[in-house]
């Protein structure tokens, strides 16, 4: 779950609306002497970046609704095998845009919380169903959970339409997605029952790359070398996943050795360290 995006979204939104220094949106030091340039309008490049990424968000939010539907239908119909097959495809679009979901308050925990994240009675969403399908080998009792999930992803798609975006915050979202990989996908803590963590891993990185690609033209202006390095690092990360790909997805997380996870973690940390430089870079290029 990501809370950083809440703040960066609000910062971007506020800064766009007001010519005052937005709360908390600046470097350390006296709040009172904080200044930032008026950002009531974005230049054409920034607008293009925003439009580009908004398109990606919408596409995946709609895909999430579309892939959740048959998954939910299978659960409600009691078709265990089919539900298990349809679980991973429904996870992919969500994991590509996850930080945006988290900016909408309780939607992310309702859709994506793991069992130990929430109090006993509050465990629902994808992972509650995942537990039922893989650990309990049943769909019994999951129909209401599945229907609620469908309602929640629809609500998410609706909110995505209206979300405020700004280039630095899109770039920060790219970082957030890699943080997701580091925190729970690389450790196998995300998909505890189905062990499809590498599916989520790839989706997180795809989402990160899409966010990066959206703001890349801005980065190319201020630091083309960094831009090139990051592009190369994304390729390197995807390559490092290749050995684990199978005909219908990836090997289960449980088959990875410590050496495997270490290679993947090092690849992610390498890319992420460079990617973390982007928000500040494009902020300086946006205002000449």
């Amino acid at each position, binding site marked *: 779950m990501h809370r950083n995006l809440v703040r960066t979204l609000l910062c971007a939104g506020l800064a766009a609306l007001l010519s005052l220094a937005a*709360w908390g949106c600046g470097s350390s030091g006296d709040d009172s002497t904080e200044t930032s340039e008026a950002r009531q309008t974005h230049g054409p490049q920034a607008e293009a970046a925003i439009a580009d990424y908004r398109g990606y968000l919408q596409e995946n939010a709609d895909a999430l609704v579309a892939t959740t539907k048959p998954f939910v239908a299978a659960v409600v119909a009691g078709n265990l095998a089919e539900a298990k097959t349809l679980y991973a495809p429904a996870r992919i679009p969500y994991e590509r845009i996850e930080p945006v979901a988290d900016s909408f308050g309780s939607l992310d925990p309702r859709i994506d919380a793991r069992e*130990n994240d929430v109090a006993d009675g509050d465990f629902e969403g994808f992972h509650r169903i995942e537990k039922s399908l893989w650990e309990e080998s049943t769909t019994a009792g999951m129909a209401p959970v599945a229907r609620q999930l469908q309602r929640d992803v629809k609500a998410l798609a609706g909110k995505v339409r209206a979300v405020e975006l700004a280039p630095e915050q899109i770039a920060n979202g790219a970082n957030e997605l890699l*943080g997701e990989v580091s925190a729970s996908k690389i450790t196998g803590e995300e998909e505890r029952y189905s062990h499809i963590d590498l599916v989520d891993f790839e989706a997180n990185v795809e989402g990160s790359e899409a966010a990066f690609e959206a703001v890349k033209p801005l980065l190319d202006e201020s630091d083309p070398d960094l831009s090139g390095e990051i592009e190369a690092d994304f390729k390197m990360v995807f390559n490092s996943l290749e050995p684990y790909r199978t005909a219908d997805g990836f090997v289960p997380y449980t088959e990875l050795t*410590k050496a495997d996870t270490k290679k993947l973690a090092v690849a992610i940390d390498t890319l992420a360290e460079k990617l973390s430089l982007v928000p500040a870079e494009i902020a300086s290029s946006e205002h000449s």
Partner: protein
Amino acid sequence: MPPLTKISRRRLLASAGVGAAAVGFGGGGLLVGHRLAEADDGTGSVPFYGEHQAGIGTAAQDRLHFAAFDLLSEDPAELRELMRLWTVAAAEACAGEMVGSVNDVPLAPPDDTGETVGLLPSRLTVTFGFGPGLFEKPGLGLGAKRPPALRHLPPLPGDELDPSESGGDICIQACSDDPQVAFHAIRNLARIGRGVVAMRWSQLGFGRTASTSRSQDTPRNLMGMKDGTANIRAEDSEDMERFVWVGGEGPAWMRGGTYMVTRRIRMLLEVWDRASLQDQELTIGRHKYSGAPLGGSEEFEPLPLEAQRNGHPVIPVDAHVRLASAKENDGARLLRRGYSFTDGVDESLGELEAGLFFISFQRHPEQFVAIQQRLGSLDALNEYIKHIGSALFAVPPGAAPGGYVGEALLA
């Protein structure tokens, strides 16, 4: 006379009382025994005996060695004897004396392992605690004396606890400004306990992450943030009585004691380090370098929790300091006394295994549980940390010379 086993030789030493420890040994005459007054330069000795155990209100030292033990025996007499021997040995070490007195008999292994010979006690404190499991062992018959407050900690949101790094029937917290002195204390007590207890898990800590005295500067934890600004200070005796020391509500044997919670908190430093300065500050709720709260300018000013800018709270609703504040927890406060740690590399990730070994002392464990319920569910900091170990101990009141820690419980 029965044959002298290791334990019975030490029994003789114990009955001779504190201060019977040898002052030197042949061949070198290294003098290590003087009871030094508590010196500000960090080399002096802290009195072991007193109304409360030391190492709680004591100004936080720089280094920690902590150990949790499983009790192997259910013989009450053995447990009493263990605590007697441990009390004597701990008092010796804290006074800068060698443990035991058989340290220069050629055919005998020395009582004291020797690595602190020539070192000053450096404010060593040794603090003992009893875990809930101790009261559940039928042979010990302590069930009726179990404090109602001493219930196993419940599962808390976000827990990723490793059972082998959690729990314990008995704990020992050794703190000192000299890491070798802290290490030595645990090592020697573990040795004395062989056969009665076995080590369950241990933790070395290398930097204090709290100030427990107004004379101390606020240290930084491994996130580079000042840690402990709003901590209870030992000089605030009203707060110590209200929030830390058990009063009449506990069983008589716990009066003047406290409860200790330990939480091994892994920090995802690689992820934290690539977060922007702004994100770091918004996560915690303070400016990184000054320690001033967001919206403020001085480290020690009260948190401006009501402050707003453009319709939003200046300190975010999910900021760590807000969620942990007394104001948002019905006035509940904890005495925090934790340490930074690293245990090397997590070989499955090629990343640092490091973070905060959190220690808190509170009058009732519920103070901790309530705060952690909130933090575990809502804290922005959760993106960067994982609670991977946990333990709870009842810390008895202090002992007097001739007595031992836990005597009122075990006698």
